[in-house]
């Protein structure tokens, strides 16, 4: 299998600047300083052409950061990024441009990511004209066609983003990504802000477009039900690291990593009535100061002494399945 997109040993570190609330806090003597976040820590992932990979994990675990690294919106602090087997750092300017158009991202917040002062026909049509995908005089037809593709009225082109509902805005974001004819799309929580009935429409659209244009997706979501429905393979992240990768059926049937198991047991389910939820154990650690060894050890019911000091490697636990837990590798003692 040769990957369409691959990242190897990739990390991203941020210096966390003080926000307004922290500055106010400092006035009251909180004494806060800038800190370094290891948002993504030596992650490797290869995505095959036509594949849909679901990326799941708690808020702040680095999903969006990894998605942005995959499309090239974030530089890598370390590691390499390959597109169709070639190191992006080694490409000519021309080749880089082509590769950049080939990978697109649909952003987490459809409100913030659409310029409120631009009309829909510019939001969608500007990039393809600039990049010579369509001649300027065909822009309106091109935009009208894309609007129809995503199930919107082609008469909407002259409107501004605020004149649309959440679900319609999500579709505009999708049309904008499609406009440059990408092969690979990172969908970052693309349906998170939508009601179930609208979410169903947008998920159906993703499935239709995948078939029609042979798209490859990295589908970021905290909703395990959505990921299960769409993805061929699921990647679970915890505090900047991948802890498990497996085909969708396998991971839902038989999760390996204790974190994956905890996650799946908490998924709300229409068929589980008046269930006894599991009370709080441990504390959710801060990404600024992650626990040593296995990041999950303070919350893990299987943790032993080894887990606090030694980072478990992501190793093969079955055909096509990887997990990072000492239980797979000689135990936690």
């Amino acid at each position, binding site marked *: 299998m040769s990957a369409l997109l691959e990242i190897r040993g990739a990390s991203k570190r941020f210096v966390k600047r003080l926000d307004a609330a*922290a500055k106010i806090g400092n006035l009251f003597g909180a004494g806060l300083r800038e800190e370094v976040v290891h948002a993504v820590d030596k992650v490797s992932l290869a995505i095959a052409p036509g594949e849909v990979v679901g990326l799941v994990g708690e808020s702040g675990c680095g999903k969006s950061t990894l998605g942005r690294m995959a499309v090239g919106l974030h530089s890598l602090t370390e590691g390499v990024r390959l597109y169709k087997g070639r190191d992006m750092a080694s490409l000519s300017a021309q080749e880089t441009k082509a590769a950049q158009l080939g990978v697109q991202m649909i952003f987490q917040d459809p409100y913030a990511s659409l310029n409120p002062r631009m009309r829909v026909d510019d939001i969608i049509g500007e990039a393809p004209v600039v990049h010579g995908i369509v001649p300027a005089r065909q822009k309106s037809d091109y935009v009208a066609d894309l609007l129809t593709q995503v199930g919107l009225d082609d008469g909407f082109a002259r409107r501004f983003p605020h004149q649309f509902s959440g679900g319609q805005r999500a579709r505009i974001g999708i049309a904008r990504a499609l406009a440059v004819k990408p092969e690979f799309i990172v969908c970052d929580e693309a349906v998170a802000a939508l*009601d179930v009935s*609208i979410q169903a429409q947008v998920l159906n659209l993703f499935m239709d477009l995948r078939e029609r244009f042979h798209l490859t997706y990295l589908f970021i979501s905290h909703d395990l039900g959505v990921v*299960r429905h769409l993805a061929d393979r699921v990647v679970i992240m915890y505090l900047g690291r991948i802890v498990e990768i497996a085909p969708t059926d396998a991971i839902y049937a038989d999760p390996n990593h204790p974190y994956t198991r905890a996650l799946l047991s908490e998924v*709300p*389910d229409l068929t589980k009535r008046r*269930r006894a939820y*599991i009370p709080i154990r*441990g504390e959710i650690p801060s990404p600024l100061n992650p626990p040593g060894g296995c990041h999950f050890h303070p919350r893990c019911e299987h943790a032993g002494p080894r887990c606090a000091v030694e980072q478990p490697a992501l190793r093969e636990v079955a055909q096509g399945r990887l997990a990072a837990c000492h239980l797979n590798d000689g135990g936690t003692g």
Partner: protein
Amino acid sequence: MSQQPALSTATPVLQVSGLETHFAARNGIVKPVNGVSFSVSRGKIMGLVGESGSGKSMTGYSIMGLIDAPGKVVGGSILLDGREVRGLDAESLRALRGNRIAMIFQDPMMTLNPVLRIDTQMVEAIQAHEDVGRHAALDRCRAALAQVGIASPDQRLKSYPHQFSGGMRQRVAIAIAILLKPDVIIADEPTTALDVTIQGQILAEMQKLCRESGTALIWITHDLSVIAGLADQVCVMYAGRIVERGSVDDVLDSTAHPYTLGLLNSVPSRNPRGQRLRQIPGMTPSLLNLAPGCPFRERCAHATRECLEDPLLEPVLGHPTDAASAAHQVSCHHPLQTGIST
């Protein structure tokens, strides 16, 4: 799976009937709460479910007396332990809030003051309603923080809200709501922004609170799956009205309203994996000058001319468990037959 409370459930602690809240807009009237009725008993959990804009938060704010101009509660009654609280003056309302009835907001910063330390805020919350010393109050604060899973409460009490992550802030807001063990808590999607593992943990604490202190809980959400796991009763809201209500099993398994069924069918787990999801056609109507009749009729496959008239919320007929049938109600001219709800 969890045991039901052995507390008396004879009279509901909160009884809302015919509640109406209007907003005067430039070009007409918006009715986000349009004749809402329900009741909750001690120790019970009621889910209030509906899509964005259906009026869930406005229902909560109306009960709490938190509607500001241009909005106004224009009709209905809110009985708290048998006493009418609608229209109470500001001071009496403040005495009730926090103490007898508390709300947890979607955004925890609606509860928390950014420039005050957590201990100051929590102690004030107690002392506003009870005559207790600072030390005794602090003990209760620590206990409440521990209950929502905040480790090292002593250190945390000395922090400011910005020193917490979003999830931790929400847990502090929940701790403040449970400090005084109110009779009723209205929780407005407090876990929507949290991860499922943390959500599960908070739900466990809320269940325990209801069981042990007899608090009645109204859990507002757009997620039917959360309601399924948490609630005893459920009210489904659409365009400012309750369109269906009943026990969780009745509403989810013997669904009577076409809208409820549409919502259920759009949940991915109710569809074969990888297949197109069944979606509800169209969009939710604007609440501005909404025409009379069933507000769902434009999207409904069963709509007839009758649906131009307002349907009443009435008991579902031909229910399998007859004793419970009066409690399962639907507002629809053509309710679905039980047994064909998939």
